[in-house]
């Protein structure tokens, strides 16, 4: 019984650590940080810097799991949020949405890269020629 308690306990501990790191791992949502860092306005939050620089600042604080740099703006995907950094008259305007709402809202720019028919992304995937399966 003692051996089973030790062996089983170690297995469970390793399993719990793997689960905790996997589920909790990744990146923090930048929602709160953005609301504290940038003043509200223009239907979102305002930045005095252009989109690429503003997006760089947000990425520096919280690394997204995916991103799209489009002529219309920068779109960052987090596990719990989609952040759009769009050009404004002076600087940028930042929109923060839930992933589903953000995908619907900016689908014209991120479609094919973050999703698609049946939820399958098809464009610009992988590491290039020979980059794995």
């Amino acid at each position, binding site marked *: *019984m003692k051996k*089973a308690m030790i*062996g*089983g*306990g*170690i*297995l*469970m501990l*390793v*399993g719990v650590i*793997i*689960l905790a*790191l*996997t589920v909790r791992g990744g990146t923090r949502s930048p929602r709160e940080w953005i609301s504290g860092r940038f003043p509200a306005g223009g239907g979102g939050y305002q930045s005095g810097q*252009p*989109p*690429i*620089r503003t997006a*760089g600042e947000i990425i*520096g604080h919280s690394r997204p799991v*995916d*991103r*799209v*740099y489009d*002529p*219309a*703006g920068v779109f960052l*995907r987090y*596990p719990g949020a989609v952040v*759009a950094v769009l*050009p*404004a008259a002076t600087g940028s305007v930042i929109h923060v949405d839930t992933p*589903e709402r953000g*995908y*619907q*809202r*900016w*689908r*014209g720019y991120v*479609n*094919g*890269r*973050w*999703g*698609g*028919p*049946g*939820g*399958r*992304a098809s*464009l*610009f*995937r*992988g*590491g*290039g*020629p*020979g*980059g*794995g399966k």
Partner: protein
Amino acid sequence: MSGGGAKPDERKKKKGNGGWIGCLIVLAAFALTVVLPIGWSLWDEGAFDPDLSDDMTAVALGPAETARLAERLQEASRRHGICYGWEVDADTGAPVEVGSNLGAGVDARKADKATCPEWIVLKADYFYLDKEWSSVGYTVLDSYDAVQFSLDELTSSGVLDGTELGERGVAQLADAIGSLPLLAAEADLAPALPAQEQVFSPSATVDDELDSGRGAGWWFLVGLGSLLVGLGLLWIIRSAVKEWKWRRGL
């Protein structure tokens, strides 16, 4: 009482079996946590691919991707009066890929002045080694004499990383090309493009939705963690039940 003498031997035998089962569980856990992930990684890297020759025809961007890039650059080009394009050398032996808002294979630099009064082109030079891209160098070429475009903002924030291409090799290239109109607006060469919500996309269908964002690796780790917890729990419960039966003389 006559049969009672045999029972302790049987119990000892069963106890011995329990040790073997424990060892098997530990071996299975080792295989799942160490051997399988390493094997998966090697397979993913192509270590078991039968064809070890380099692919001399591999290109960076497929037809759907070049069409998407050209489409996305068209509106910016129209509003800015600047042609945007790309030149990609995948270094595989395949022809250099060229394209622009004018279409796949159309070099903005060679277009007539009426079509492209000014142009900005992203040049990407890959280094192809051992069947994969090992690094890339990006350069912005343009028709302006006094403007110096820089990708430093993208590099410093890790969006472009010439040496760590990973699974984002192609996405990085698309981001670099997609950034050109933003860079032009930053340099005050053109107005920023207004973004429109829910832009109609001809490729969009009714079931167009966001992917889960969790790749096979995430699900594998969740499954592995759950399996280990389950096995550990099963081991303890099994041992506890056996001991309980032994104490009760069952």
